[in-house]
């Protein structure tokens, strides 16, 4: 499958701070890729690098097969970009914004635009500066979708939106991608929202990509394993690398296995913790996966620094 976004060893430094380091990312065509991470992890910087708003200090990125530093009008005609950081022409009404954007795109679909305008319930005659945050985001989406882009890049699109609007937006994106087979690259720190959307996921923390894979694979290989252990049990001296955040209580032992294999993972725990019984494996939500990965990454860095 072709990649609409492909990065190789992308690093970005600014005033002595490395905001993104050695990023290796691949977003397959037609996928919805959720780019997740806590605040300040490097998500927005990565997107700016992809959109040629910033230039990588090292490495290279390709968007729609073109080097990101060479993205020009012909590529941006096929890319929709919505960001909470983007400066909108606030003095325009929604109608003026549509009229302003339309001549830039040969693929502008007037009927589609009118339908979205209606679906989003946007007031045409109201200036953007007088719209609520959610309405502004809808207006931005409107003028980024109406020309049916091949790739939609959304940077924190749900920030500040109330739940109802979020549902509308998510529903809209899902519907469009299903119909049009668009690729979507969406960054968010709100994991619950994108869980419903994404079929690929990447997790960035401290500027470094911690993982990037299909959501189905991730949820399949990440399991919480709980067990009951005899009093006085000790942790195994050589625990597997795939075990994350092991916790030993007076009568219980639990661990997140990042390489879960049915039966084999349970057997391995029984071998390493003698007397362990009632071993059960529970799937994790995306939120639990990323909390685990974040805590594990921080624990590892703390151990290295101490």
């Amino acid at each position, binding site marked *: 499958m072709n990649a609409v976004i492909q990065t190789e060893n992308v690093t970005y430094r600014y005033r002595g701070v490395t905001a993104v380091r050695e990023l290796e990312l691949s977003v397959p065509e037609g996928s919805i890729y959720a780019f997740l991470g806590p605040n300040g992890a490097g998500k927005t910087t990565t997107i700016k690098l992809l959109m040629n708003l910033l230039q990588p200090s090292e490495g290279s990125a390709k968007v729609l097969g073109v080097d990101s530093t060479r993205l020009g009008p012909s590529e941006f005609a096929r890319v929709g970009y919505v960001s909470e950081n983007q400066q909108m022409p606030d003095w325009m009404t929604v109608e003026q914004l549509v009229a302003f954007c339309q*001549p830039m795109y040969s693929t502008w679909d007037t009927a589609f635009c009118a339908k979205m305008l209606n679906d989003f319930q946007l007031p045409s005659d109201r200036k953007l500066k007088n719209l609520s945050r959610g309405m502004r985001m809808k207006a931005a989406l409107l003028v980024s979708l109406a020309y049916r882009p091949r790739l939609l890049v959304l940077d924190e699109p749900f920030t500040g939106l109330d739940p109802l609007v979020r549902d509308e937006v998510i529903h809209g994106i899902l519907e469009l991608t299903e119909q049009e087979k668009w690729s979507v690259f969406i960054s968010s720190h709100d994991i619950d929202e994108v869980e419903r959307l994404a079929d690929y996921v990447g997790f960035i923390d401290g500027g470094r990509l911690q993982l990037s894979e299909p959501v189905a694979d991730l949820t399949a290989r990440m399991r919480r394993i709980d067990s009951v252990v005899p009093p006085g049990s000790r942790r195994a001296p050589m625990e597997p690398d795939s075990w994350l955040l092991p916790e030993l209580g007076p009568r219980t032992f639990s661990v997140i296995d990042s390489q879960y294999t049915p039966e084999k993972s349970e057997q391995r725990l029984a071998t390493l913790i003698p007397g362990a019984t009632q071993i059960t494996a529970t799937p994790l939500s995306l939120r639990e996966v990323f909390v685990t990965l974040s805590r594990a990454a921080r624990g590892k860095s703390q151990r290295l620094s101490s």
Partner: protein
Amino acid sequence: MNLSLHFFRKDLSRASWILIFWSLLVVTEGCLAFLTYPSNSSQFGANFGQPILLPLVHYLLIAVIVPLMIQEDAAVGSAAFWLTRPVSHGALLRAKLLGLGAIMLAPLIVDLVVLFLAGLPTGDLEKAFADIFLRQVSLVVPIAAVAALTPTFWRFTVVLVGSVILLTLLSAALPQPKLLPTGLADVVLFMWGGSVLAHQYLTRRTSRSIILACLGGALVTAVSVWPWALADEPLAFSTTAFDSKHLTLEVKATSLNTSTSVSLIHNVVTKKIDGVYELKGLPPAFIYQTRTVSARLIAGDGTELPSRVTISTNPPPEFDSPHVSAIAAAIGIPVHSTVSRVGSTTLASLDNSDFVRYKNSPVKLICDLDFVVSRYETDGELPLIKGAHTRSRGEGVTVGGIDLSDEGITIEIAESSVNVRFSDGIRSAGQPAELRLRGDPVYVLVNRQRNEASVVSNGTARGSSSMFYLGGLLMKKVVELPFGGERNNSAPIIDHEWLQGAVLVRLVRVPVAEFAKRAEVKLAKLGEPLRQPKSPR
């Protein structure tokens, strides 16, 4: 280009209200200038504050409109809407240039129409176009460059105000040239601003653009303070034959003075050799002016001291003896004047440290002066009637008032002129040399029936006030000319009877020849008190 026009229309729409207001202001400014600048109009324009207030508002609006248009699609930062839209950097730059062009177009059209109506010769319209265009681009484009390097109006304001203060301080601290090639500073400003603007929009490399801006600022400053002696233009002489061989230059050092100037770092003590210079043997129909000077101070051991030339190149005062003789020759009537003076000037100056080192050494001052000789020519005559009007060389002159008293007569006149660079009719620095040397016109009260004439009392006009319109393209000057009232038997008594047959004659200087003369002054010791002149002429 379609996309450029699309963005251009959007920018116009963005700034529509302020542009409408500004356009009305430009038209109002033009109308008021046209109505109030002529010498025979009333001065209500001045009462409205038109010459000062409207241009000030005009410039302030430019400083608001330009950043509004430029920062609408900011070239700095990474948040601008256009950055992720299918518009090329070149197309956006073209759109911005169209916007700037529109801003410049309105004053260009209005000013040209007003100048045309004000009597600018048709042949000078292209010169006027060049002048107004340069004025506009040298104002608008640098402002646009600053706007392109700043993300918000607030930052733009801070940078612009800071730059203006810095340039003002620099211009105060650095020596200013007496002559700057016409329009050069404007061209450099335009090129500088245009380069920064284009570089920033085409590359979005803000750091490099800032470096370019700083280098350009240094270049603009260098151009402004460069001693452009070589740029002085050749004179267009009249056909009057003139032989300069028999003329001699006399230079006398009269005193040694000390002056202290305060700089930003420390006080600078300078020693000045003051003196007088005079061109001897000049026929009475002519006057002389110095055009360029060079003076060298050579110590006894042959060392050339690092001295500065400060001989004045300004024309000598009007109505001293040579001038009066030349005026009399021009009008063919003897002219009475009580004014007789030869101005003292600083011949050379040197730092105190150099002076201390050589103060006991004999020195030689070698002065090379380039002279221009001129004669007076009658330029027009005005009857002594309020409202009398004449036009000459693009200037209108009107008698505004006549006040006769026991002390003599005071005539108020108004002069209005079109001051287009690259064209005739201007006298400011940076303009063709013969026009600068022509100086202000001279007015003489003449009674041909009695064969008598009088120049203004004490040699000077008084109560002069100037009003500038359209940024100086049009100028109106009101001057009070006092005549008579002198306690001298040879002076004509200017009374009601004398005035019956009198007219006000306007004279201008016409350069006829240019030549160089050298003079040497030997001083026994640099540090000893210099010989005083025998008597002032």
